[in-house]
């Protein structure tokens, strides 16, 4: 249990980063040229509204005080109002969270379902044609732009074969599952390309390790050594790699949501950028940053629980 002690200290360590995130986000929006109050309200700015916004955000005060107001508002969950949708930014973000979570979760799951078998085949068939093929595909796969891959998937599976819908999210749970297959698959393929190379190398190293030889000397069959000894040891660095790539994963979902017209946080961000809905941009960016920090924490947690040697 004492190995989990780091969890107590982690919030303290994270404090500077969290401050930094809020500061950076604040600075970004403040650096937009023009009158901030008008920027916040857009075209619907009446003198009363402008005055109200100026008071709420302390726009006549010195900059550092504005930052304090910003933090205070943040801690109250007050992220401003979207000028396009006329609702609380936070409410808006929450309403769009579900599709994005679907997309990320489904992609990771599919990626793992692809990675484990393919990396296993490549590792066990090392040097043979199956290995070369898988390595070539994963190296090449690194260079596939996800947006183009998504469109090609639509072309093949939706238009030519008619198996899946072209875009959108769907209403019922089942419809949503149907709609999410292609988007998740697109992201999963790109993610798998990265993970397969890493897992394959780990598996080969573990299978050649001393303890694997010792297990063979005890009469353990090779397949058992592979699945019960080499694989668990290899999964630990792979999970770490996954966590390191979460930022890239979120970026991918932003793009894929645009390709498939999924009403998630990514599409919200892009639309908000085009319509100069800066409160929404700020809110989404903040939420994504917090999510990244959280995922990294979870990855550390997973590493500690899976590898008894690790001390954080």
């Amino acid at each position, binding site marked *: 249990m004492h190995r989990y002690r780091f969890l107590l200290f982690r919030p303290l360590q994270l404090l500077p980063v969290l401050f930094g995130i809020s500061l950076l986000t604040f600075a970004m929006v403040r650096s937009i040229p023009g009158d901030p109050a008008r920027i916040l309200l857009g075209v619907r700015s009446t003198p009363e509204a402008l005055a109200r916004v100026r008071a709420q955000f302390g726009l006549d005060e010195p900059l550092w005080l504005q930052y304090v107001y910003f933090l205070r508002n943040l801690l109250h969950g007050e992220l401003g109002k979207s000028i396009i949708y006329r609702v609380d930014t936070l409410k808006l973000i929450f309403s769009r969270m579900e599709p994005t979570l679907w997309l990320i979760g489904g992609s990771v799951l599919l990626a793992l379902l692809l990675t484990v078998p393919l990396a296993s085949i490549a590792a066990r068939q090392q040097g043979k044609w199956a290995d070369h093929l898988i390595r070539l595909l994963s190296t090449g796969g690194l260079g596939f732009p996800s947006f183009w891959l998504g469109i090609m998937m639509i072309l093949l599976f939706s238009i030519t074969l008619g198996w899946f819908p072209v875009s959108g999210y769907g209403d019922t749970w089942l419809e949503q599952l149907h709609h999410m297959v292609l988007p998740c698959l697109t992201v999963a393929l790109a993610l798998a390309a990265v993970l397969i190379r890493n897992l394959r190398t780990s598996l080969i190293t573990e299978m050649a390790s001393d303890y694997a030889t010792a297990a063979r000397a005890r009469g353990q069959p090779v397949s058992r050594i592979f699945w*019960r000894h080499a694989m668990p040891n290899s999964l630990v660095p792979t999970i770490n790699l996954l966590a390191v790539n979460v930022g890239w994963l979120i970026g991918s979902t932003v793009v894929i949501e645009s390709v498939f017209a999924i009403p998630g946080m990514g599409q919200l961000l892009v639309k908000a950028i085009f319509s100069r809905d800066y409160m929404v941009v700020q809110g989404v960016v903040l939420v994504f940053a917090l999510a990244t920090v959280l995922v990294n924490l979870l990855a550390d947690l997973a590493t500690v629980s899976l590898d*008894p040697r690790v001390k954080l």
Partner: protein
Amino acid sequence: MSTLLQVSHLSVVNRQGIALVDDVSFSLDSGEMLGLVGESGSGKTVSCRALMRLLPPDALRIAGGEVSLQGQNILALTERQMAKIRGREIGMIFQNPSSHLNPIMTIGAQIAESRRLHFGASAREAMVDAIELLRKVGIPDPAQRVKSYPHEFSGGMRQRAMIAVALAPEPKLLIADEPTTALDVTVQLQILRLLMTLRDTLGVAIVLITHDLGVVAQTCDRIAVMYGGRLCETGGKNQVLAGALHPYTQGLMDCQPASEGGHSQLVTIDGQPPVAEHFPTGCRFHPRCRYATQDCQAQQPPMRTSPMDTRHQAACHHPLAHLHTQEASC
């Protein structure tokens, strides 16, 4: 006491066709401890890996010979059949217990794994067996330690844990590949004592691979000395130590520092052990041997039996005992 293991004319070659183990024969009875002695590169580890058919397939292969375990030639078995022999009939413990134990599995789980695989034990039975095995190898508080991970043991305890893991399938023969070399001197003695106890109480035969003749002198029943991939001398420990036939064996004995202290110079054998690419012709020891003659350079000496004991043999043209020796019939 019956013959448990009979290695006959075993040869292992590398990719260049050079024999790293050349025509090696030795035998072991059940309940006996055989000391396999030699410097690095003598082929002692390779012979034992070959015995268990655990050689790296792309680098080495068995070129000839027979390994008879209780009368059955295990070199002729399929891999599947061999897998049943490994662990259950022959076990192996290694020099470095840290790298030879799975770091993310508890010791108990690694022991239990063998119990379940070889004996079909249930999870609970296997755990009980694991605790018992840890107790047998002298690990204190076994019921607690069974849940520990390898890195949580000290060096000596970790070696004991590895011995427990190797004993889990109840092998009749245990190959100990330099089990004490990486340990502190005080711990070395404990481990050797443990091996001897296991030999006496469990009746397991042990092949102790070592470069230290002193270790063999304290523990083993029989000795086999290897040099340059070939067998120099083999025989009962007392017979060999009392009267070594091969100059190399005598040299090793002379190298042991006198335990009573004293001011005499340390004796060494001049020269270096040979590397595979440059094995000398004839007897591989002849460049370092003070008794070498033309014969020694020309021809590998046959195994000659000492008339005093048929189980004491040496491969030398000029055995030290200078007794009337005959060609051994192996």
